[in-house]
């Protein structure tokens, strides 16, 4: 049975108001509590490690929700999930982790996702992180995503952390084969004493492989952020990395995009910017009647949308 708190967390991280429409697996406080497999989308418990295997048959279309929620304090949850998207399939996968830490101990979730998007398949993957709780305990999330995009396959990753996560170490590794395409959006907001590190490594392995990485962040309070996206072209691939941060208060942001090419046909571009909210943007919204605070809020929520 899902409690009201469970439902709230699920809504925050997976937009779930009700039972998920397609296949799903809900993990709570270190255990799977609800699951539904469908024809062509099989969800199995791993035998050797904590976690699940999600196996999508070739050509299958549909959605899979695999959210994780933590509602206890002094809990460290480590999980390994393997997701296999069959050739030509078209899948929307919603992961995400919501933590409500009621006590003063740590609540930590380390999720390792290994995903393969087979030849010609499409995957839209969304992972949202959210934390809350007023017991003073830390909320820690360390997601590691290892993604293989096969020939002519397409993957779109949306990684979002908007509020309440005290500490996050995010590692994302992607390999893109010939004709494969990756689009990755990362959005992050930190406040207070929070820290967030994101390390992304994308390898373009084959001809006509492409990658677009767009990272947007807002750092408030005394928080600190560090981004190190690396884009490496082993084959004749094309890629673009864009890191854009709004810095406020006493926050610190470090942004080090790196590009590397080992192929004369490769084309890679990186851009990085850190700056405060533009004065002209504030002034425009205030001239429409918004207060300065409302204007800041509007600019940030648009920026992170």
């Amino acid at each position: 049975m899902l409690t009201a708190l469970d439902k709230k967390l699920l809504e925050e991280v997976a937009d779930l108001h009700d039972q998920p429409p397609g296949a799903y697996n809900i993990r709570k406080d270190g255990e799977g509590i609800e699951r539904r497999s469908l024809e062509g989308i099989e969800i199995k418990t791993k035998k050797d490690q904590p976690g699940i295997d999600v196996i999508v048959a070739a050509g299958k279309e549909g959605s899979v929700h695999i959210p994780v929620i933590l509602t206890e304090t002094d809990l460290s949850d480590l999980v390994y999930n393997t997701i296999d998207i069959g050739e030509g399939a078209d899948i929307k996968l919603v992961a995400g982790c919501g933590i409500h830490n009621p006590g003063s101990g740590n609540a930590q979730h380390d999720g390792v996702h290994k995903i393969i998007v087979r030849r010609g398949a499409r995957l839209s993957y969304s992972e949202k992180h959210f934390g809350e709780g007023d017991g003073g305990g830390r909320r820690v999330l360390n997601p590691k995503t290892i993604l293989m995009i096969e020939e002519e396959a397409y993957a779109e990753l949306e990684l979002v952390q908007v509020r309440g996560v005290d500490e996050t170490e995010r590692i994302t590794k992607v390999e893109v084969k010939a004709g494969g395409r990756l689009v990755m959006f990362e959005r992050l907001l930190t406040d207070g004493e929070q820290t967030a590190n994101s390390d992304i490594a994308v390898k373009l392995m084959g001809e006509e492989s492409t990658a677009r990485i767009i990272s947007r962040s807002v750092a408030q309070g005394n928080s600190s952020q560090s981004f190190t996206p690396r884009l490496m072209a082993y084959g004749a691939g094309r890629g673009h990395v864009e890191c854009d941060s709004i810095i406020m208060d006493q926050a610190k942001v470090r942004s080090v995009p790196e590009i590397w090419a080992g192929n004369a046909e490769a084309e890679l571009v990186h851009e990085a910017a850190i700056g405060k909210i533009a004065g002209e943007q504030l002034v425009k919204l205030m001239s429409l009647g918004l207060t300065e605070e409302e204007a800041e809020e509007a600019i940030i929520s648009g920026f992170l949308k």
Partner: protein
Amino acid sequence: MFTFENITLEFTVEEKKVPILHDIDLQLEAGKMYALTGPNGSGKSSVARVAMGIYQPTEGRLFYKDEDITSLSITERARRGIGYAFQQPARFKGMQVKDMLEYAFQHSDGVNCQVLRQIGLCPDDYLERTLDTSLSGGEMKRIEIATLLARNPKVRIFDEPEAGIDLWSFEQLIDVIGDSHREDTTTVVISHQEKILNMVDEIILMEDGQIKLRGDRETVWPQIKESTLCSCRTACRLGEEIYADCPR
């Protein structure tokens, strides 16, 4: 009535004081349309920015409906019914046209797509577009004008609304500005366009941060021609050595 009383504006650039506006005295009446014109850099946008509260004058006072608004914030002025369509609209990453219009409508009445249609953009094509570099200059400009129309303020200042707008939309734009003008609104159009100068009740000509002349078209028009067309040649004659590179 919107009144500028001895407004002086100075900026400090590299520890030096740079005068921008000098002793501006201006009364703008409700129900009237004004054109504010003059050479580039003469201070037209600065006047608008002082009115909106974006620039704080170094000296002087501003009154709106007998209230001293000199120390009011931009927000407070907006809520009292003062509006400004910027010369160079700000771009916003991630913000959609419909968000901006919603903000614009928030402190006035009525929400519809009519304002987009009015300025010649199909709502279906534009409501979900993002106000970033993916919109052209002319599109940004039209949306900027739409946000002012959406707010429907009592004092409305359009800063070179024609800039970047293509020729055949220009006529339509003039109509929209003219039609939106009411008996209780004060409309100020900053412009260099003859068509706009022809449609207003009064023209205010600026030069070097001062009001050089104001009056109806017949009085001001001959002076404008002279002032804008001759400024370069006059400058060259005034100081050959300083303006040696000035094209003749």
